[in-house]
C-alpha cells in the first residue's frame, strides 16, 4: 500500500504569513518589539544599548535554560532564585577569607567552583525529592524557595557583603569582542544544551520522560537519574547566574539576589515555547523568551512608563507572546 494517498497534493510554496506567525511566534514578537523601540525609544540603535541588554538578560537566559530542561521533564523549579542567593552568598565568603586572600587565584577558582557545587547539591535535593520520593515538583522546590534564602542569610549573618575583586568580577563585567562576557557564556551554554537535547541519549530521555514517564521507565530509561540530573543542571545554572549577579554588583545581597527570578525564568521558558506538561525543550526558545522579557522591561523603563503601568503592560505582552506561541499547537 502506498502512503501517497495520505498526503495531500496541494502544497504550493506560497508565502503564508499565518503560518509564519504560527511557527515563529516568538521571533515575530521580537521583531515587533525591536521595531517599536527603533521608532520610539531614544538612542535605541547604539552599541551600548546592546551591551546593557545583553548584560542584563544573561542571567535570566541562563536560568531560563535550566528551567526549560526541568519543564521538559514535566517539572518546575521554584528554588532557582534562592539557589542564586545561596551561591552568591558563598562566593565572597571564600575569596575574602584568609585563605582566599593568601592564594588569590585559588581563592577565586574555589569561589566559583564551590558555590556551583552547593548549587548542584540543592538541585540534587530537589531532584531526589521529585524523583525518589515522588513529591510534586512545585512543592518539592518550594522547600528551598522558602529556606534557601534563609540559609544564605544565615551564612552571611544577614549582612550585605561588598568587595573589590577584579578577577572574580570578570564573570559579570568582563568583555569579549566588546560584548559582555556573560552574554557569550549564555550562548555557549545554549549551544551545549542544544546539542545535549537534540543529539544525546540524555536529551532524548529528558523529552521522553516529559512525554510519558511510564513509557520511558518501561522502555528501560534511567528515569530517576535523568530527572535528578535535570534538577542538578538547573541548580548549577542558577548558581552560575547568582555568581554573575554578585560579580556585576561587587556585592552579595542574600536577601535580594535572584528575587522573583523563578517567575521570570518560567515566563521566558514558556514564551520561548516550552510546554508546562513537558516533552519539549526549546533551548534557544528560552533565550528568545528571556530576550523578549528583557526588551519589554527595557522598553517600558526607557520610555518612562510608571512602574505600576509597566506591570500591566508586561502582563499583556506575556499573554500576547504566549498566545502567538500557543497558536502553533492547534
Amino acid at each position, binding site marked *: 500500500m502506498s502512503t501517497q494517498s495520505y498526503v495531500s497534493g496541494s502544497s504550493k510554496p506560497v508565502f503564508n504569513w499565518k503560518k509564519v506567525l504560527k511557527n515563529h511566534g516568538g521571533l515575530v514578537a521580537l521583531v515587533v518589539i525591536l521595531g517599536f523601540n527603533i521608532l520610539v525609544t531614544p538612542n535605541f540603535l547604539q552599541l551600548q544599548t546592546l551591551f546593557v541588554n545583553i548584560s542584563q538578560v544573561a542571567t535570566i537566559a541562563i536560568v531560563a535554560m535550566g528551567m526549560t530542561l526541568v519543564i521538559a521533564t514535566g517539572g518546575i523549579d521554584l528554588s532557582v532564585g534562592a539557589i542564586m542567593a545561596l551561591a552568591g552568598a558563598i562566593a565572597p565568603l571564600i575569596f575574602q577569607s584568609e585563605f582566599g586572600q593568601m592564594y588569590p587565584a585559588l581563592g577565586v577558582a574555589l569561589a566559583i567552583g564551590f558555590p556551583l557545587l552547593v548549587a548542584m547539591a540543592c538541585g540534587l535535593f530537589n531532584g531526589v525529592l521529585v524523583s525518589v520520593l515522588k513529591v510534586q515538583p512545585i512543592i518539592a522546590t518550594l522547600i*528551598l524557595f522558602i529556606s534557601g534564602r534563609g540559609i544564605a542569610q544565615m551564612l552571611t549573618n544577614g549582612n550585605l557583603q561588598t568587595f573589590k575583586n577584579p578577577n572574580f568580577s570578570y564573570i559579570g563585567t568582563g568583555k569579549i569582542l566588546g560584548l559582555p562576557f556573560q552574554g557569550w557564556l549564555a550562548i555557549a551554554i545554549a549551544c551545549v544544551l542544544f546539542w545535549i537535547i537534540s543529539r544525546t541519549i540524555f536529551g532524548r530521555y529528558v523529552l521522553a520522560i516529559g512525554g510519558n514517564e511510564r513509557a520511558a521507565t518501561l522502555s528501560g530509561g534511567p528515569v530517576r537519574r535523568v530527572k535528578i540530573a535535570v534538577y542538578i543542571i538547573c541548580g548549577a545554572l542558577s548558581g552560575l547566574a547568582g555568581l554573575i549577579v554578585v560579580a556585576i554588583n561587587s556585592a552579595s545581597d542574600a536577601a535580594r539576589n535572584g528575587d522573583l527570578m523563578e517567575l521570570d525564568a518560567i515566563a521566558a521558558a514558556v514564551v520561548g515555547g516550552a510546554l508546562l506538561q513537558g516533552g519539549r525543550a526549546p533551548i534557544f526558545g528560552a533565550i528568545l523568551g528571556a530576550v523578549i522579557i528583557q526588551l519589554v522591561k527595557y522598553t517600558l523603563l526607557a520610555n518612562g512608563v510608571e512602574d505600576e503601568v509597566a506591570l500591566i503592560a508586561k502582563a499583556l505582552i506575556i499573554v500576547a507572546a504566549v498566545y502567538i506561541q500557543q497558536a502553533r499547537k492547534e
Partner: protein
Amino acid sequence: MLDSNAFDLRKYISRNPQSMAVWVALAALILFGFLRYDNFSGAYNISSFLNYNSMFIIISVGMSFVIMTGGIDLSVGSVAAFTSVIAAYLSPHGIEIALPLAVLAGVAFGGLNAFFIIVLRIPPFIATLATMLGAKGGALVISDANTIAVDWGSNFTKMGMEKIYNFLPWSIVVVGIVVIALWFLLEKTSLGRTVLAIGGGEDASMLMGLKVNRAKAFVYLLSGGCAGLAGVILASGFGAGQPLEGIGWELTAIASVVVGGTLLTGGLGSVPATVAGALLLGLVFNILNFENGLGTITISAYWQMVIRGGFLFAVILFQARVMSRNKRKGRVA
C-alpha cells in the same frame, strides 16, 4: 467525603492517605503548642489566629478548586490586594455594599483568567502570572500607590475587627460559611464532580460530554471571588486597602492545598483537608512567634525561613511515607 460512607473513617483514610498526613501533623502541632507555651490556647491567641488566617483559608480553598482541575492560580495575592483597595474605597457605604462589589471585582479578575485560559488557550500558569502582574499594577494605579484608609465610622470594619462573644471573629464566620458551602458544592453537585473529573482527564471529561469549559470557568471565577473576599477581610481587619499586600500568598495557598493532599495534577482533592493545610501552615508562624517569646533564643528572620522550609519538608516526607506505604498495599494506577 459526604457521600454514603462519609463516616467510615477507615475507608476514608485508606482512600485519602495523603490527606490523613495533614490532620496528624495539625494535631501534633497543636498539642506541641498547647504543652509548650503558656498563652497559646488562650482565647486571645485563638481568635486573632483565626482572624488572620481566615484570609488564607479562603484563598486556599478557592485555589484548591483550581488545582483540582489541574490548573493553578497565581493571581490570588494580587487580586486580594486589588480588592482590598476597592473595598476601602467603598467602605463608607457599609459592608453590605463594599463586600459584594469587592468580591465581584475579584470575580472579574477570575473572568479574565478564565478568558485567557479557555478562550485564548494560554496555560494557566502563564495566564494567571500575567493577571498577577496586571492586578498588582492595577491596585497601585487605582490607589495611586498609597494605602487607602477605610471609613472607621461605617460598619465596614466590623467584619475584620469585631468578634462574636468577644471570641469568634466575624471574618472566620463568613469564611466558614463559604467554605462549608463550597465543600457541599464539591461533594454534592454535578459541577463539583465535573471539577474533579476535569483534573483526572480533561479530554476524557470532554468526551464523556461534561461541561468542561463551564466548570473551568467556574473555578477561576470562584478563586477570584475567594481572593476578593480575602481582600475585603484584609481591608476590614487592617483598616486599609493595601495595594502592596498579597505577595507570596499564592505560594502559601498552593502549599496549603498540596499539604492537604490535593494532587497538583488535579483529579483529587478535599475541602476540609485544604483548610487543615492552611491552618497548619499558619500555625507554624504562630508557634515561631511563641518560641521567640520564650526568650531562650531570639529567632532571626532567616532562621524562621529555614525552620519553615524544614517543617514543610518534614510534612512532605511524612506524606510521602504514608503514600508509599499505601501504595505497597495495592496497585494505584
